[in-house]
């Protein structure tokens, strides 16, 4: 109401009386701003007369009377009394909500001012007043969510953010690093939601062990044992219960026809006063525990292996893995066995699950769980996951639930928020990369329906998730595929200065504040070749000794891990331990017009230390100049650089097209010029390519004339580059097709990129 009073005079400046001549107020209506405030509650009620009857008190207390009178007056009689009442209440509540919000906003706008440095210093000398700081956090977040409108004059965003960081540390006990990381990941408002969600525990959930029982039976009310139950051998399948209602807690007392043809293998949890519900639609095995009179981890059913206490988020990687009966599956970091046993259950105890874990201590829990849940198809190994490919390979499915910083499970382990920092994240990332490569190496791409790897962590950090997968995409023959999970937010394809492969959008992220699950990341990879990208490139090269191939060999000779990959058209060069972020021709980001800036940024970054595959689309519509053509012709079955361009533009000369087609299916590095519009390979192109830093690609396309003999200078450069993952240099994506001379400079000038 206060707001209203204020706003009324406030409106006058914009109010003109020009329509006064024809617009006249009706007599019946109440004056606009007079009574309204008193009668606010009933303002929108249908019946004005009736409204006036009890207009004075207008309170909720005589709602009933109101109703009755309302009814009497109502001629139509179509609406029932409670409907009307409900409608009125809803309308009133909406109005009130809007008004409240307005008031709050105005109050905030008026009141909040960011403390100055002096004030903050003074504040630090005193013990912190948590509730005041908490309020300030909220207000700062409010301001930041609409910064232009709400900011205080003269205070920069940085000041707000730094206050927010400091306050979040004080209120929630996070380390500085953690807050920074989270603020990188989320908007301030979402970050606050995330942090607050971490303060409350996630619901306890259990997974029904389908090897021993079924969800309904586990949850079922306890019945006196059916006479036939004890006679029937345990392992014979029994008929499903015909109970229609999914809400077990309702079932327990009332509806149960007595001689149910149930196999009563499991006595009900409900009979033990456990209040539970199916988890949700996406899981057929999960049950959520609301409250329990007994410790859920010590019931006879638990000990008999009818269920596993497991957070709902950890069903997801296994669901994404989709193991099939009779497959060979590897769980690389298996303890304490929740996922391993889930896999075995999905496979119906057939095939083989190899459960590995690094820690002998944790393996004890793993083994106990495996035995308890009646899983018989596992082999338990205690090995370093990084070394696993040396022990064994040829798996159809590999699950890597990598060890991580645990930023997704802060609600379970609050020590994470105070103890973890940048260095921990980086250390985890290093390990995760190695593990993921090992996981991929253990997988067999050629099996029937095989070759899938699922990478998951209970961390929300991009560094531990997308960055790791992106690294693997560059150094192994894998691609990201749909995870098959029905929900979750998409993975990042761009994060701060980093650009990841576009297919990473198929990865799934889960957050405590949006999904009420632990923070989780799941990414499903498909391995399409057992070779390293470099080997693949060589194979496709038909064994012809050509300059680029030599270059490739030289480059990839040093390290086994990094290689050049021709067929999938992205490559990476790496001249130190730290791999540069690979960019790929395949990436739509590179080829598409809209994303023009991204690739170029990346390009520049990647350029100096990483030779580039120059990217462009390969539709063969490229318009090459004659010299270009020759070159393409000349290098027939070698890693060939195709100069072409993306959807939009350039009409290729027919001859050019032919050549592109004629080129045998070889590892092709593509020189992209631009995505849209332009893209005629002008003579200048040549220069640019030359200018491009030492890339095998550049060699091919440009200097590799006559069977790919590189010019001496070029060769040298190639030699200098030790290993070959090649980043894509996309020149530009939009409009301006011709690589400008400045490009050259940029490439040269770009500093080596430290890659977190």
């Amino acid at each position, binding site marked *: 109401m206060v707001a209203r009073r204020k706003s009324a005079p406030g409106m006058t400046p914009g109010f003109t009386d020009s329509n006064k001549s024809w617009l006249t107020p009706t007599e019946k209506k109440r004056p606009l701003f007079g009574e309204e405030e008193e009668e606010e509650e009933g303002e929108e009620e249908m019946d004005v007369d009736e409204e006036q009857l009890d207009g004075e008190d207008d309170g909720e207390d005589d709602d009933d009377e109101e109703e009755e009178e309302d009814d009497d007056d109502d001629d139509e009689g179509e609406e029932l009394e409670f409907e009307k009442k409900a409608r009125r209440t809803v309308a009133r509540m909406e109005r009130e909500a809007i008004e409240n919000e307005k008031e709050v906003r105005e109050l905030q706008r008026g009141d909040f001012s960011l403390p100055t440095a002096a004030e903050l210093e003074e504040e630090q000398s005193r013990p912190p007043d948590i509730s005041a700081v908490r309020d300030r956090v909220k207000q700062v977040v409010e301001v930041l969510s609409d910064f232009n409108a709400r900011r205080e004059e003269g205070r920069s965003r940085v000041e707000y953010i730094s206050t927010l960081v400091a306050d979040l540390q004080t209120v929630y006990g996070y380390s500085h690093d953690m807050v920074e990381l989270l603020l990188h990941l989320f908007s301030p408002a979402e970050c606050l939601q995330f942090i607050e969600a971490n303060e409350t525990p996630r619901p306890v959930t259990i997974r029904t062990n389908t090897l021993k029982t079924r969800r309904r039976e586990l949850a079922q009310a*306890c019945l006196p*044992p059916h006479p036939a*139950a*004890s006679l029937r*051998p*345990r*392992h014979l399948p029994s008929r499903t219960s015909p109970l229609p209602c999914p809400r077990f807690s309702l079932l327990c007392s009332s509806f149960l026809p007595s001689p149910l043809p149930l196999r*009563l*293998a*499991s*006595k009900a949890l409900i009979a033990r006063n456990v209040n539970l519900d199916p988890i949700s639609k996406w899981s057929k095995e999960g049950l959520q525990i609301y409250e329990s009179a007994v410790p859920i*981890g*010590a019931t*006879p*059913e638990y*000990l*008999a*292996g*009818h269920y596993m206490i497991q957070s709902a988020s950890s069903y997801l990687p296994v669901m994404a893995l989709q193991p099939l009966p009779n497959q*060979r599956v590897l769980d690389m970091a298996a303890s304490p066995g929740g996922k391993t046993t889930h896999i075995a259950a999905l496979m119906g105890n057939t*095939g*083989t699950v*190899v459960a590995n874990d690094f820690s*002998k201590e944790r*393996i*004890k*829990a793993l*083994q*106990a769980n*495996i*035995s*308890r849940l*009646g899983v*018989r*198809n*596992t*082999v*338990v*190994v*205690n*090995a370093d996951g990084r070394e696993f490919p040396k*022990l*064994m390979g040829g798996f159809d499915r590999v699950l890597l639930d990598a060890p991580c910083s645990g930023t997704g499970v802060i609600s379970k382990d609050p020590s994470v928020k105070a103890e973890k920092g940048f260095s921990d994240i980086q250390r985890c990332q290093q390990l995760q990369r190695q593990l993921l490569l090992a996981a991929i190496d253990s997988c067999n791409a050629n099996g029937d329906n095989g070759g899938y790897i699922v990478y998951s962590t209970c961390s929300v950090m991009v560094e531990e998730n997308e960055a790791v997968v992106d690294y693997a995409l560059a150094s192994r023959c894998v691609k990201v595929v749909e995870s098959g999970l029905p929900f979750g937010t998409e993975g990042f394809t761009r994060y701060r200065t980093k650009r990841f492969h576009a297919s990473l959008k198929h990865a799934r992220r889960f957050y405590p504040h949006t999904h009420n699950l632990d923070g989780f990341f799941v990414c499903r990879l498909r391995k399409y070749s057992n070779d390293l990208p470099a080997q693949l490139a060589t194979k496709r090269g038909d064994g012809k000794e050509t300059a680029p191939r030599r270059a490739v060999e030289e480059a990839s000779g040093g390290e086994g891990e990094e290689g050049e990959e021709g067929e999938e058209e992205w490559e990476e060069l790496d001249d130190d331990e730290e791999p540069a972020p690979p960019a790929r021709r395949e990436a739509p980001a590179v080829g598409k017009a809209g994303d023009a800036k991204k690739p170029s940024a990346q390009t520049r970054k990647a350029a100096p230390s990483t030779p580039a595959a120059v990217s462009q689309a390969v539709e063969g519509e490229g318009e090459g100049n004659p010299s270009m053509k020759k070159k393409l012709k000349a290098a027939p079955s070698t890693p060939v650089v195709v100069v072409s361009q993306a959807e939009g533009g350039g009409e290729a000369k027919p001859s050019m097209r032919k050549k592109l087609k004629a080129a045998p299916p070889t590892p092709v590095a593509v020189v992209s010029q631009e995505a849209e519009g332009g893209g005629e390979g002008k003579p200048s192109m040549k220069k640019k390519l030359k200018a491009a830093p030492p890339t095998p690609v550049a060699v091919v396309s440009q200097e590799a004339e006559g069977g790919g003999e590189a010019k001496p200078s070029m060769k040298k450069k190639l030699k200098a580059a030790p290993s070959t993952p090649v980043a894509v240099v996309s020149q530009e994506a939009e409009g301006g097709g011709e690589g400008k001379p400045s490009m050259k400079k940029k490439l040269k000038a770009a500093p080596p990129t430290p890659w977190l």
Partner: protein
Amino acid sequence: MVRPLTEEELKIFFAKLAKYIGHAIKQLVDRPDGKYCFRLHRDRVYYVSEQQVKVAAALPREQLLGMGCTFGKFTKTKKFRLHVTCLDYIAQHAQYKVWLKPAAEQSFLYGNHVLKAGLGRITEDTPQYQGVVILNMADVPLGFGTTAKSTAEVRKLEPQGVVAFHQADVGEYLRDEETLC
């Protein structure tokens, strides 16, 4: 090395197992759904399918910690001790069973013997010192033991008398997680 049991070991092992499941051992060895066998690794006897034996054979001995289903282990004195991990198989094939009243479940799961007061049902004609599987009234196997008295004698027993001696129970998954597998 993962190896088959020697003649002598098999004798000791089967003698023990037969106390619970009698001639059903045959059904464990000749299964219609694939080849299964017993293997010895680090004094423990595992019941594994051929498929997993092959996988396990490829692994270094120190790093292989388990496979298939653990049946139990040989003690240093070359006696055999059945572990609760094989309960599923025993429960499936056992000839003699003892059912516990709900009130007595907890006590048994803490490692106590079965008393007459907690006895729900017992298979007819169970002899004395016979290996039995112990279930709750909903037929969930909770462990196994040996009868202290035959069925006929149990009828006359006072409430606090022991019906069956405790040998293994699923509570060990919590109590003895370390040594179980």
